[in-house]
C-alpha cells in the first residue's frame, strides 16, 4: 500500500492524445487530393459566364484547356480581353493546331476522338477570338468542345 502513491491526477474525460494523429490524417488527405494546376495563368482569372444547360467534363485526362482573357502583363501583350493562353504562354489562334497535336501525342490513338477541348473565356471576350479558335479546332478535327461556364441563371 505504501508503494503506490495515490493518483492525484484527474482522469481526463476524453483522451486527446490522438488529436494530432487525426489532424495529420486530414492533412495528408488534403495534400493528396489537392489538384495541382498544371499551368500558371498568364491572364487574369477569366470570369466565366453562367449557364444552366451544362454538362460535367467526364474524364480530366482527356481535357485540354484553352484560356482566353486579359493578360496579366498589359505592356507586353496588349490590352483587351482576347489574349489566348495555350499551355503556359500567351499565343495566338494559329498555334492552336500545334497545341492540339502536342496533347494528342500523349494519348493513345483510340482515345483521340474522345478528347475534349475546354475553352475558358472571360465573359468580356469577343466572339471573333472564340470563332478563330473554333475554326482552328475544326481544322484539326478536335470536334468535342466545351465552353466553360458556371452553373447559374442569367447574369
Amino acid at each position, binding site marked *: 500500500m505504501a508503494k503506490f502513491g495515490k493518483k492525484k491526477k484527474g482522469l481526463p474525460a476524453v483522451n486527446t492524445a490522438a488529436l494530432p494523429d487525426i489532424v495529420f490524417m486530414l492533412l495528408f488527405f488534403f495534400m493528396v487530393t489537392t489538384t495541382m494546376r498544371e499551368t500558371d495563368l498568364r491572364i487574369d482569372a477569366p470570369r466565366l*459566364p453562367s449557364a444552366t444547360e451544362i454538362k*460535367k*467534363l467526364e474524364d480530366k485526362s482527356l481535357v485540354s484547356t484553352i484560356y482566353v482573357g486579359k493578360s496579366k502583363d498589359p505592356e507586353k501583350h496588349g490590352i483587351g480581353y482576347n489574349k489566348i493562353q495555350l499551355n503556359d504562354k500567351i499565343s495566338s489562334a494559329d498555334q492552336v493546331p500545334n497545341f492540339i497535336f502536342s496533347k494528342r501525342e500523349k494519348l493513345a490513338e483510340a482515345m483521340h476522338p474522345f478528347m475534349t477541348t*475546354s475553352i475558358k473565356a472571360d465573359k468580356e471576350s469577343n466572339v471573333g477570338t472564340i*470563332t478563330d479558335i473554333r475554326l482552328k479546332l475544326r481544322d484539326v478535327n478536335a470536334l468535342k468542345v466545351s465552353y466553360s461556364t458556371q452553373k447559374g441563371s442569367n447574369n
Partner: protein
Amino acid sequence: MARRENPEINAGSMADIAFLLLIFFLVTTTMNVDSGISKKLSEKPPADYVPPIIKEKNIFEVVINRNNDLLVEDERVQINQLKDLAVQFIDNGGGLGKPGEDGTPGKPCDYCQGSRSESSSDHPNKAIISVQSDRGTNYGTYIQVQNELLRAYTELRNRLSKQRYGVSFDELEQSFKDAKKSADLKDRVEELRKKVEAIKIAYPQIISDAEPTS
C-alpha cells in the same frame, strides 16, 4: 526501472503545427470548374463542298450584333423571349420530316404541338437554328443565347419524355447514367439507351454557328 517516456521535446505544439498546415491547404485548394456547355463541332467541309439547299422556313435565324442586340427572324427581341420563339419554331411540324436512313419517306410529326404553320419548320429533325454573331459581340451574350436555345430543346425533350415514358428527359438521362455505372441495373441499360436515343432523335439539337461578320 520504470521505462516511462520522459519527453525531452515538448510535443504539445505538434497539434498547432498540424492545424496550421491543414488550414493552409484548405485555403489554397483550388476548385477547378469542370462543367460547361458542350458542343460537337461539325467536320470541316471539303474544298468543293456544295451546301445542301434548305428551305428558308426550316432555318431559324438568330443574329447578334456588336451591341449585343438580338435579331430573331428579322425582328428585334429581348433575350428572355428567345426560348419561347425557338420552341414555337422547332415544334411547329408544318410538313414532312427527313426521309429515314433506310429510304422510308419522311413522315409528318405526330408529337409536335405547334401551330403547324406553313411558314415555319416542317419537322423538328429538319429545323435548323442558325446563330450569326459579330466578331465584336460579347462572349457572355453569345453564351446566354446558346443557353436559351438549349433550354428550348430541353423543354421540348422533357415534355415529350413525360408524355411517352412518364419521366422527364433529365431524369431519364440520369437513370441511364446510373444504370451504366451500377452493376445490378445492367439489364436496364439497353432499354434506357433506346429511350434516350428516341427522344434525342425526336428533337435533335441542330444549332449552327455561322461565320461571324467582322
